[in-house]
């Protein structure tokens, strides 16, 4: 299968008054055509920074890609000039943002905002773009006549539908959805998830779904990458990771999660807090919180290693066991 996106050894940092925040540290990721990948992690794990790096929308003065390459269909993006990227954004790669209230411009009508995509990328006239915008609205289940309205006239769920309509306008090859349902109520979230599900079948775009909600990822994705402190610490199919998580962090995440089908008397809380990206620990970034920490975890940064055909883990404990197994079979 053709790889739509391939990220190789990405390092991203932000400059702040308190020092350099290392948001993404050596991230590797690839996604194939039509694949739906969930990117999961807690606040500050670097999920959104990864997404913004792909479309190069990092804050211009403070955020920078220090190292690494991002290939979109074989084209390297990190060094491309702005006008090239502008042709890609919203056209080949588009993004659905977290908060539909702030991602739409309050002073333009919905028709103008969706129509802008068509005018920009397909050189359509205003009238044609307007008509197209109406069609897109119909696709996401909003009557076409509402193109004349402003964002404030829509409810939260509707606004997110508008965001989805705008992002799908050019039938992109890659869609990045950054917590698209976090700001919505449960019943509205169900509507939006259902819509994304329908559309992904219709358009067969590759999807990167960013969320801190493991349930939402399970709804939509085949594969899932778990992020911690700026790198991927576990990667595999939803089936594998949800049933048999291997990294101590992923295990902790599932154990601390209340679920409507579980009967846990007490949640197993992880100790400590999400690592501070201003001063990350040496070695494995999770070592201060890890219940299975070893001496060498404090100095060696584990790499993402294959432990089963569709399951990768970055943990010294697991990779060593894997290595030992291999050795024993050789012997």
């Amino acid at each position, binding site marked *: 299968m053709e790889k739509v996106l391939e990220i190789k050894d990405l390092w991203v940092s932000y400059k702040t008054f308190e020092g350099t925040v290392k948001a993404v540290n050596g991230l590797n990721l690839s996604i194939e055509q039509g694949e739906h990948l969930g990117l999961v992690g807690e606040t500050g794990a670097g999920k959104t920074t990864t997404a913004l790096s792909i479309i190069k929308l990092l804050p211009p003065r403070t955020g920078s890609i220090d190292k690494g390459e991002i290939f979109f269909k074989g084209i390297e993006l990190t060094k491309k000039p702005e006008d090239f990227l502008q042709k890609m954004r919203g056209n080949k790669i588009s993004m659905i943002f977290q908060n539909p209230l702030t991602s739409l411009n309050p002073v333009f009508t919905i028709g103008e905002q969706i129509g802008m995509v068509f005018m920009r990328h397909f050189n359509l006239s205003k009238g044609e773009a307007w008509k197209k915008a109406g069609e897109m609205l119909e696709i996401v289940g909003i009557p076409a006549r509402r193109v004349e309205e402003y964002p404030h006239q829509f409810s939260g769920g*509707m606004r997110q539908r508008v965001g989805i309509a705008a992002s799908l306008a050019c039938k992109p090859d890659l869609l990045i959805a950054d917590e698209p349902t976090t700001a919505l109520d*449960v019943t509205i979230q169900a509507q939006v998830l259902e819509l994304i599900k329908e559309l992904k079948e219709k358009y067969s775009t590759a999807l990167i779904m960013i969320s801190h909600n493991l349930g*939402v990822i399970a709804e939509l994705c085949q594969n899932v990458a778990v992020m911690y402190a700026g790198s991927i610490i576990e990667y595999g199919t939803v089936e594998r990771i949800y049933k048999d998580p291997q990294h101590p962090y992923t295990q902790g995440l599932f*154990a601390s999660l209340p*679920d409507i089908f579980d009967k846990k008397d*007490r*949640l197993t809380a992880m100790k400590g807090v999400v690592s501070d990206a201003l001063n990350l620990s040496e070695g494995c970034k999770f070592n201060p919180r890890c219940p299975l920490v070893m001496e060498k975890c404090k100095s060696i940064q584990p790499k993402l290693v294959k432990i089963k055909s569709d399951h990768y883990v970055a943990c010294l404990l697991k990779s060593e066991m894997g290595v030992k197994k291999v050795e024993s079979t050789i012997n």
Partner: protein
Amino acid sequence: MNQPLIKIINLKKYFTIKDKGLLHAVDDINLDIPSGETLGLVGESGCGKSTTGLTLVQLLQPTSGQVFYNGIDIFSLKGKDSKKIRKKMQIIFQDPYSSLNPKKLIKNILSEPYIIHGIRKKSIIDQNINHLLDITGCAKNILAKYPHELDGGKRQTIGIARALALDPDFIVCDEPVSALDVSIQAQILNLLMDLQKKLNLTYLFITHDLSVVKHISQRVAVMYLGKIVELAQTEELFAHPLHPYTQALLSAIPSVNIDIKRERIILKGDVPSPINPKPICRFFERCPQATEECERIEPPLELKHPNHWVSCTKVFTKIQKETDGTDSKKKLLTKV
């Protein structure tokens, strides 16, 4: 039966919206909360769950209705008596980033409740604060810090310590974990459960997260547009939701148990406006099972199953048939 610690009778809270009319935030709710219980109050944004909580701790004055604490009507009290009751009923707020004064040291934040209630002696305050830190598991050096120096979890812990300062019996927890990360959320939930056992607290736990509510509460009340639409024991409610709204709500929660396949009920549309609602079933517009009857009457919250209260005309008729005779009961069973 013992008298419940908190008894809410016909509580209403309306807000006047200029040029539009009355917003029925809380519309005639009745609830009993026995001592030592955690009652979960769930619903989507705008359904009136926070307004209910704020009214209980007298941060809002109700439009009408009564709230009894140990048999005392709290809204009839004035002055000193009212202040005494307020000590016993406290609240933990949703957002630990905005509920702590950024200009005050943690020490001052925790001293404030004592000063307000007339305890001014420094040694007594210090002793009490130390006790608070002990039971919430905080280190002493936290006292000399400002809120911005703490992470979300620790901040919420201070919010909890502050609520506990005056030795309350009843605490309204208004979405105490919604602003926190999953791994921190578990720490706070465990702390709340430990404290409840240790101090024999009674909680009204307000949240939109049904997984959290299932974990922490013994009974659950589901709110929709200012009304309680269903009330039952947690196990019962999650196993046999009767109200169509509760059914849809439960089916909509994404779960991490990927093996459990569920029928998903997708509700159409959004929650309608709570301004000047019509006297019909509040859920009528979105209900997949709505009939003409639902447009005529406003169903009251009634006991339909043992310990299971529902406000839905559909459920009512079913039970009536059941009590009529065995024949119709059989019919019903085959239907189900």
